[in-house]
């Protein structure tokens, strides 16, 4: 009996949201598909013409596009393990008993990085990592490291800020998992073994898994979306060393003005995103 309501009622409740999201979320995508099949350059609007799949062919055979894609996944592959390792460490420290006041303070400070405007993180990076008057080199004992102008260092700097901003998120997610472990189970396990590792592996880990899965999904999506922080910090440079996929599409579409090609890139990115989301969600989320 539960939930049997007339279709009209269902539509009245859910219709506005669906229509709203369709208008702002789907209509533009259809338009992007149309654009991607055309030669569509903002500075040559008199010459808009249908060119079939040519833009897609250009994208698929463009080394630079796949390099940007590879760079994006490389960032995910380096930053995420760091975030999980550090996040787990922080979560375990916070999970220990005692020191309530300091722990509360720590939890509150963990909230700050992840709420920070991403663009501001990049601006802060410019100030703090400047080779000459940046505080980072000063704190490293007067080092003379060229962070922004060296391809590898710039990449490391991006990893640093991504880790700074999102480790707290991972830590809090895992902490939430740790607190789900029933107290008596954990205590019993600690009496059995002295090894913290064993407790973590066999008692706590099962409770951490849902959180880890969520982290994996969201960090993958957010890395594919990554734009603001890099845009304000390195703009993809030096060279193309920090040009991630969203930055590349923005550059082609709004600096090269080739909206047709950029749309094709965007559609391919969208397909990759949906496929990944499908896999993740079908495999891991089965609750609904």
């Amino acid at each position: 009996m539960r939930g049997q309501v007339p279709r009209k009622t269902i539509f009245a409740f859910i219709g506005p949201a669906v229509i709203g999201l369709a208008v702002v979320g789907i209509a533009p995508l259809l338009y992007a598909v149309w654009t991607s099949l055309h030669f569509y350059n903002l500075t040559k609007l008199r010459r808009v013409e249908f060119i079939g799949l040519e833009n897609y062919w250009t994208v698929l055979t463009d080394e630079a596009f796949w390099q940007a894609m590879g760079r994006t996944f490389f960032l995910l592959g380096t930053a995420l393990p760091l975030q999980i390792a550090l996040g787990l460490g922080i979560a375990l420290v916070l999970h220990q008993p005692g020191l309530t006041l300091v722990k509360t303070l720590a939890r509150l400070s963990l909230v700050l990085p992840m709420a920070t405007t991403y663009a501001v993180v990049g601006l802060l990076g410019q100030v703090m990592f400047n080779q000459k008057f940046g505080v980072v080199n000063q704190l490293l004992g007067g080092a003379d490291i060229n962070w922004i102008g060296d391809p590898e260092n710039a990449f490391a700097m991006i990893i640093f800020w991504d880790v700074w901003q999102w480790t707290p998120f991972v830590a809090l997610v895992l902490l939430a998992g740790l607190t789900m472990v029933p107290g008596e189970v954990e205590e019993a396990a600690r009496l059995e073994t002295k090894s913290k590792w064993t407790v973590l592996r066999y008692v706590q880990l099962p409770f951490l898994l849902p959180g880890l899965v969520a982290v994996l999904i969201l960090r993958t999506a957010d890395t594919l979306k990554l734009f603001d922080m890099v845009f304000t910090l390195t703009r993809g440079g030096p060279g193309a060393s920090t040009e991630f996929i969203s930055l590349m599409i923005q550059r082609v579409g709004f600096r090269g003005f080739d909206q047709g090609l950029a749309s094709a890139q965007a559609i391919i990115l969208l397909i990759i995103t949906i496929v990944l989301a499908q896999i993740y969600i079908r495999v891991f989320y089965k609750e609904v």
Partner: protein
Amino acid sequence: MTTTRSFWTQIALLVVIIAVCVFPFYWMVTTSLKTQIVALEAPPVWTFEPTLNNYREALFEDGVLRTLINSLVVAVCTTLLALVLGVPAAFALARFEFRGKNDLWFWFITNRMVSPIVLALPFFLIARNLGMLDKHITLILIYLTFNLPIVIWIVTDQFRGIPYDLDEAARLEGASQFTIMRRICLPLAMPGVAVSAIFSFIFSWNELMFGLILTRSEAKTAPAMAVSFMEGYNLPYGKIMATSTLIVIPVLIFALIASKQLVRGLTMGAVK
């Protein structure tokens, strides 16, 4: 002996965590109080005579104040709109059975994952054709693409937690579904609604790419403004940090208010 040692290790670790999280903010605020000459001092100085000049200039001469107001208007409006559209949808998802519910759910979560650049390209062209560039309403609408999924997600979760018996009782008394939602479920779901509203606000406030591409002057948002200081013959670091501070403070306050729910919000309810 070991307990005191681990006690001190724990304290030390906690202090390090706090320091790493907070230090960039400390540096941001102190830099915002430096004059250009002091800000370019190498190596950087830690003590100096603070000035509020950067704030005065940013707010009143360069128009940051207006962009902050724009950001506020856009974030508040889009949040309200997301709630008006999202709460009933969440109620339906939590309470009604219908075909395609899972697909709908999948569609909502996918929206959360789509890179904004995918939408920014066509949205720009559409807004251009409709003469809707540089208008608040354009941002308010496009921000729905990430706000609506958040609201629907968190609030659906909240509605599910409310015992079904309550609706049943009301229905036997002849209440419509709408009345049930408004009178019975909504008051109980208020915590979830509040959290989703805060999230919606934070995400909208922090957004840069749409602000950069879809606005020019009238509706320019604060993050887009901060970026536009980033060139010139003389990068005004103090002013950039002052603007950054002004942008970040409201979200930090909101985040601290919602800190208990933050994880739940960011994982779209996957972690309670």
